[in-house]
């Protein structure tokens, strides 16, 4: 079947089997590799993208169910908030292996949209992504730095 949606502002179409997770449509059918596969079970958060503005695990969303939707992912997150987050991530030197970071940044963008000035506790409650390298303390600092920048 054919699906069509907007990804990072561009119209995209793909021929897929019914029930295909959005993650594989984005990564393999459309070739946008910034969004990562980690667990396939909505546990690690490496695949988080924005679906009509909400953070979702792309491994759990069936692509045929989101025909016509607006999808934003790491490569396209370049508005004021997105730029502030990416700059803060570099300023705080967050990444180690880096593999979880696109999902982290997408989830952080949702947090700051909902709560522009989060406390450390707010951040810890919202950010359930797994970083196996243990960059969590720097993620917190980067989110707070970006929040200051945008406020």
């Amino acid at each position, binding site marked *: 079947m054919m699906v069509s949606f907007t990804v990072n502002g561009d119209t995209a179409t793909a021929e897929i*089997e019914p029930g*295909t*997770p959005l993650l*594989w449509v984005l*990564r*393999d*059918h459309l*070739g946008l*590799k*910034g*969004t*990562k*596969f*980690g*667990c*396939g*079970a909505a*546990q*690690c958060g*490496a695949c988080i993208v924005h679906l009509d503005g909400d953070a979702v695990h792309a491994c759990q969303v069936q692509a045929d169910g989101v025909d016509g939707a607006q999808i934003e*992912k*790491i*490569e396209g997150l370049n508005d004021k908030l997105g730029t502030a987050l*990416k700059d803060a*991530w*570099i300023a705080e*030197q*967050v*990444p*180690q*292996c*880096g*593999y*979880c*970071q*696109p999902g982290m*940044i997408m989830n952080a963008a949702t947090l700051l949209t909902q709560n522009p000035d989060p406390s450390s506790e707010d*951040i*810890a*409650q919202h*950010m*359930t*992504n*797994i*970083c*196996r*390298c*243990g*960059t*969590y*303390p*720097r*993620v*917190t600092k980067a989110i707070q730095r970006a929040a200051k920048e945008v406020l």
Partner: protein
Amino acid sequence: MNKLTPLSRRGFMQAGAGLLFSFSVAKPGFAQSETDKALSSAFVEILGDGTVKILSPAAEMGNGSLTAIPIIVAEEMDADWDQVVVDFTGVDDQAYSNPTFWHYGIMLTAGSSSVSGFYDQMRLTGAQIRKTLIAGAADMLSVPAEELSTEPGMVMHASSGQSLTFGEIAAAMGTPDTLPEVTKEDLKDPGTFRLIGHADLQRRDAPAKVHGDADLYSIDVELPGMLYATVTRTCFTGRVPLDVPSEADVLALPNVVAVTRLPDAVAVVASTYEAALAGEELMQVTWSQAETDATYSSDAALDGLASLAEDTSLEGMDVMALAGAPATDFGPILEGAARVHAGSYRTDFMYHAQIEPLNAVAHVTEGGAKVELWAGTQTPSHLTRAIGDAMSVAPGDTTLHRSYLGGAFGRRAAMDHDWALDAVRLSKIHAAPVKSIWSREMDIHAGRFRPITAHYLQAAEDADGTVASFYHRVASDTPLRMSDQYRFRQGNGFPVITTPGLFPSYNYAHYKAEIIRVESDVRVSPMRGVGAFANVFAMESFFDEVAHEQGTDPLEFRRGLTQGNERGLAVLDKIAEMTSWDARPGLGLCFTEGRMAIAVELDVDPDSGALDLKHVWCATDVGVVVHPNNAENQVVGGLIFHLSNSLRERITFTNGQVDQRNYYNYDVLKMADIPPIDVHFMASTEAPEGVGDFGTEAIAAALANAIFSASGKRLRHAPLTQERIAEALKA
């Protein structure tokens, strides 16, 4: 008294490393045209426009070596950091083997050994390039070399006011036939360092990782006509697929191309990865030895190890004797003791849980004669060797593209590289490029685990109440057998992965560590911290038990055995200051490698056994800190990794099957679980030690000691899960 000189694990590994330093003149394969004439060596290329390309032999798996190693070279050659670009070296053991692993002469990124192992060699390499540039400038300016000096990116002639950029010199001189000899006399005084130790230097890989750039990791590589694969394996080594009862059902799925048997696995090959994953879900395989494997349980295996560790009539391998010290007969020491303290400890199987599942992309051409491979590995030269062995491909006929690793933690040091060989074999069979990705479920089920261990410790107390003689017996499988047949054979079975944490951190009167090696068919592997995770958990827990039985403050007890190690004493003083040490309830300490102290403060909920982690402190002396910002990230990350190991993580086997399937039942710490963490690096100009896993695994003992301090209950089995704490509180 037989006083032992402390021998750290890295001290042991590095002994003799200096013998191997060599200098390659020109790096083979570096294209140079007459129009873009440049100076190139094995690690450095300078272009006419002044760009300085510095190559790092180490893997980039989050460790930051791709930045830290070039910093060392750039420092000694006086490069302008803004003109430096970084990249990986090629795969060549002769030119690029890690000096730490001098026994083997291989390219290996493991054991916190990249900056520490390459430090001297990279400084000399940088100094050699600087000397070359000065000689070139002397010719160009017709002045004696002695009158020249360097500033970042420039050679200066102070008396005439003339200067040349590195680019100008390189363009004029090209690569000389020989590079000048350099000695330690040519190195900078550390007091004049401009880059090493600089607080503001940033990692060169950070922007691409933050922006989600394509093709950083092998999992992101895409080739025309590429097929996708999943593989199914057992959780035991060397099992053969006998039958695939579900083959027809898998083949009936849309976009599935084939069900392909490999020597120890069965693959689903498909035109999309989602189809390959769907096929794996339906996959049923009948394996060889299934009936006997079904009797395996990790609990029973651990009981077996404990009886071996506690049976002191059974002789194991004397670690200090293997390292060249005299063997110790501990029997008479115990017989002569006024009192003998003893304790038993255990650790469970644990899983690396790197977020990027194991994967590789292979393109085999010319009927199997040529292999092109994209993979993230901790040991590139062993990967090409493994392909050569398995597929009869000449070493020069494998081209490896060294990808970033989305986490490794030892998993990608497993030298047979089964996960990469899958892709190579499938590409050959299907005559197409193949991307093979293990599902998370298979990454766990067929994981290679940090082995289970059982420990038995004894300490001899003299008539005057002094306790300074320790005997540590550990029973464990030896990971190298499974992960690295090459090193296993060359090392004559020396259990290099089990020994860390068994070399003495203290100045003992008498000390003996003994390994009882057990061989099971469980797939085991080095994992961050390797043997030190279990060995230090046992040893440093036992220290607190002995101190408690003596009525001695745990910090004072450690100070007593650290006399003569001034750097170690300074670290202990620092941790006392950081924690305002007063042995208050809930405060726990450990000290490891003679150079790192970790303290934890916590509360234990008396009903549920839940921990409230209040603070973690770490004081460490790792010598020169080359890249402080990243070093702090590495130590904090190591503490969090091992905090997670210590509190939550366990792999169990029931009826020969791994019980855990995904992160929902292999529980790792998330942001909400992380306490405030403070790390202090002692100022030093000594040669650098590693920081990535250096000592951070010892946090397991600090936690056990803090739990005892808070609750009076001693946990002797890691991980220290809430369930185990609750059980201890009830007992």
